[in-house]
């Protein structure tokens, strides 16, 4: 009797830095076990080999910034039983979503001598703005242990254990003294999705929100506190306009400041 076919895993890239898919290769201790449990059916950064779809799990990195990519994404969705976005670009539009607040023609002219050679959309949008997404894994970059948890969960058809609480909870778990309370740094921890292990405060700096907004974040209250600590309106806008500038809660809070 033939053994049952292994699930097929595909990894897709849109506009991004490649860091989140690298997280899979950064699982140095687990990579060969992963390759034993699934067929790595499409992963151009790692292999020339291509297996035909459909794919059981697709990991999608990057945001949609060109007309061609918007079309390509629909083809990816059609071939994927489960589609999981990995990282801030795929989940919120990434740092390149800063164009959404400006005129992209002006941006093109700043960077390129021949803007007429460049084919780009006016906005950088998350995957969920175009197709149905089964799970969004946050982070800029994602945490590789969370990636393993999500992959394992989907392969076993259970819910991934990815807590939606704030970075503050992780600081408490880690035993880090609050950088806001001791006045050491401005910190987005109270409104930022957990997952990094509260890294920045442990290195004596404030969280800069690279995992994007937590569930039900009170950004208004945090902005008041940061203003009271001396942050001006322009700086307040900039702290919400980084790697998750396109995430709804951060976008709205950023729009409240700046002038």
């Amino acid at each position, binding site marked *: 009797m033939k053994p049952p076919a292994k699930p097929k895993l595909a990894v897709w*890239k*849109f*506009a*991004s*830095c*490649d*860091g*989140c898919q*690298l*997280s899979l*290769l*950064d699982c*140095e*201790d687990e*990579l*060969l076990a992963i*390759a034993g449990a699934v067929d*790595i059916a499409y*992963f*151009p*950064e*790692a*292999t*020339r*080999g*291509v297996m035909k779809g459909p794919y059981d799990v697709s990991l999608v990195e990057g945001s949609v*910034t*060109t007309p061609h*990519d918007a079309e390509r994404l629909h083809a990816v969705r059609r071939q994927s039983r489960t589609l999981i976005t990995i990282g801030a670009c795929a989940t919120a539009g*990434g*740092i*390149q979503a*800063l*164009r959404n607040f*400006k005129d992209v023609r*002006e*941006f*093109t002219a*700043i*960077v*390129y*001598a*021949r803007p007429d*050679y*460049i084919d*780009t959309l006016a906005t*950088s949008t998350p995957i969920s703005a175009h197709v149905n997404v089964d799970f969004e894994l946050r982070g*800029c*970059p994602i945490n590789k242990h969370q990636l393993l948890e999500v992959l394992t969960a989907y392969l076993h058809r259970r819910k991934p254990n990815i807590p939606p609480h704030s970075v503050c909870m992780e600081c408490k778990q880690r035993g880090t003294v609050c950088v806001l309370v001791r006045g050491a740094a401005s910190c987005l921890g109270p409104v930022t999705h957990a997952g*990094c292990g509260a*890294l*920045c405060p442990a*290195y*004596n*700096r404030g969280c*800069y929100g*690279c995992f994007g907004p937590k569930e039900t974040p009170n950004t208004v209250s945090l902005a008041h506190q940061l203003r009271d600590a001396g942050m001006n309106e322009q700086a307040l806008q*900039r702290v919400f306009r*980084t*790697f998750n500038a396109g995430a709804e809660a951060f976008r709205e809070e950023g729009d409240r400041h700046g002038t």
Partner: protein
Amino acid sequence: MARRTISVDVLARVEGEGALRLVIQDGKLRDAELRIFEPPRFFEAFLRGRSCLEVPDITARICGICPVAYQMSSVHAMEDALGIAITPPIRALRRLLYCGEWIESHALHMYMLHAPDFLGYDGAVEMAKDHPDIVRDGLALKKAGNEILHLLGGREIHPINVRVGGFYRVPTRREFGTLRDALERGREASLGTVKLVAGFDFPDLERDYEFVAVGHPDEYPFNEGHVVSNQGLDIPSQQYDAHFEEYHVRHSNALHSRHLGHGAYLTGPLARYSLNSSRLSPLALEAAKQAGLGPTCNNPFRSIVIRAVEMVYAFDEALRIIDAYDEPDRPFVDAPMRAGVGCAATEAPRGMLYHRYRLDPQGSVLEARIVPPTSQNQPSIENDLREFAPRWLDLPDDRLTHLCEQAIRNHDPCISCATHFLKLETVRT
């Protein structure tokens, strides 16, 4: 007219999205283009108006494979603009962080991306079925580099500990204890890597490149020194713009670059080694000699051997830095804001990375310019193909395609950086 069309939709095992187009007419190669269609992300535009202190965290996001390089070139450029000097222990720790990134990136490229070309596999996972030990060694080496990034940078991808003026937090001597053991094992294993890759079959092909790299009188270059070439160039990075020019070609979303009055040039391991091999550590020099390398190397297919030698060096240098480490009193020097222009060139794993910023009196960015190594190398990569591909035109399509892909992978192009996917298309008429 005989027309033969070869098309590979996705050139694999490179970082980012690109394509290659060869036009062959009547058995002759007419043109070779490295096409980069990775969508533009406009970093230089949206950096305008950001505080110079925010820039290192933002530029890191240009590349998930070499974020440290983008942090290093930007902090050094900002420090140049602000007129501040970092302390020797901070500079040593920055070299250590760079050692981590070189080890991680070189191990990734040699074992996961490049070795499968020489051993005849589609990728490392396929290679692991027949050569599990090789793949396991590669992953262990990669992990050792990542351990440096983890401790000193906070995490492997987009480290959080680098700031203008130094670091947010510096490690204690004790924290280096377990890392030291991992690095010693890594150094031993890296000598095995040199032996392994030196035994691969290399086409006997050389090119007459102009090599450009950072050069330092006493050190193998990471993040300090002049911009030097094998054709007599020796300038501080502040004069880079007077000697190099970027230009825009239709088939690439990454700007090309040329040395004014000279043309295409090459940066990266071949250039770095050929200009600086005498400054390697004795252990790395001995490994180079054993691998059959002379003081310079013009065969791009041998770049994998140079990466292996550089990995030995990076382990050696990391251990030297850790053993000499004295925890500084303060993790950073203060950075008072002022108007100014600052430049820096540092050595990313793939080659020289140049940044230039103009700041207003509050330290906000007025202008940013970032010239990644792959941008600089595009014309030379195309020239490699123009020179090598005509020798391969009698080969069957799949073999020709594979050799061309390999010629590109020699330079470990990072297309995400340069634009910011590689697709091979050959048109034979």
